[in-house]
């Protein structure tokens, strides 16, 4: 039960994007379509989960003073893995995400989780928490990507359902801010109704 809680709180109750407002740069930058959002979300989930495993294994051996640089090295290693794998197997997605792949290193969710959990909790709970947070992030990115793609180019996951263009501004920069702003408003209203 407790494990389930650790896992699920990242999905909705403590969603990193809609509730905690963490890691917002890729959220706005890559969500021009649902598939890009999903790809970025899964890449971040991978980095988050794998670095959780390694950090919880090595945290007892590294002195407290140098812990942040050590965490950063671990995180950067997995980011490089993602970068190379994506470049090799998914070149289109790699091009679409561009600069935001190396920037996973400075995503505050990843380092924040490492900091928050490093001093306590056991490995299993920590990894579950990382996985939950990552999937919550992926969920948020996919939702925002879908909304922007539907409004902006009239398609879902690349399948077009209207002829001609959509409301172009939603795939451009301002649309990212507007769409995310209104999605958070909707989240707030839903939360108020529920409580």
């Amino acid at each position, binding site marked *: 039960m407790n494990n389930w809680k650790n896992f699920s709180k990242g999905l909705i109750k403590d969603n990193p994007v809609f509730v905690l407002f963490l890691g917002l740069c890729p959220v706005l930058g890559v969500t021009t379509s649902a598939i890009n959002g999903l790809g970025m979300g899964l890449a971040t989930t991978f980095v988050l989960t794998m670095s959780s495993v390694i950090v919880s294994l090595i945290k007892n051996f590294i002195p407290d003073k140098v812990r942040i640089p050590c965490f950063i090295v671990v995180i950067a290693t997995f980011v490089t893995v993602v970068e190379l794998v994506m470049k090799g197997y998914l070149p289109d997605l790699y091009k679409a995400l561009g600069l935001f792949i190396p920037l996973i290193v400075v995503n505050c969710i990843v380092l924040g989780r490492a900091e928050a959990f490093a001093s306590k909790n056991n490995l299993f709970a920590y990894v579950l928490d990382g996985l939950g947070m990552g999937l919550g992030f992926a969920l948020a990115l996919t939702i925002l990507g879908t909304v922007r793609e539907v409004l902006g180019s009239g398609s879902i996951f690349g399948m077009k359902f209207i002829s001609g263009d959509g409301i172009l501004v939603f795939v451009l920069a301002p649309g990212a801010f507007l769409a995310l702003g209104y999605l958070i*408003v909707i989240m707030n209203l839903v939360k108020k109704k529920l409580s």
Partner: protein
Amino acid sequence: MEYIIIIISAVFVSNIVLSQFLGICPFMGVSNKVQTAVGMTGAVTFVMVIATIVTYLLMQYVLIPLGIDFARTITFILVIAFLVQLVEIVLKKVSPPLYQALGIFLPLITTNCTVLGVAVLVGQKDFNLLEGVVFAIGNALGFGLALITFAGIREQLELMNIPKAMRGIPIAFIVAGILALAFMGFAGIV
């Protein structure tokens, strides 16, 4: 002339915050007051220029000759984290007033993606060292322009009567969207 074009396009046309989406966290986090926005801009400019020079030299004279340019991300982030610490220590010794002004913002800069982002972009755009430095200054100015304008608007926003569900972050995003729309007007001038 070339350098002026680099600066204008970095500040207005492809503004680092409003059209490239870098540095959104400080953009939302420290934009409550104009004064803190100015302090943050100063700290970012400082670190960004130094980081660009150091990472450029490292990339050209160490990583590429050794054939380990895949280690770019790790190297860059470590260099930036190290530089931030160094700048903090040096400022504390050399110029206490400047340290007082920028001090609290410096630790935040390690995880500010603008610095790493600009360092990576300089490499991708094949700039030489001088162009890279000009690009870094332009982006820092662009960051400052967006941050300070936004802080000014948010100070006014405090006095407005906004629906409850929109208060705080949501309205900030919507305002940022409108600001980004305004900046789209600069598209095409370079």
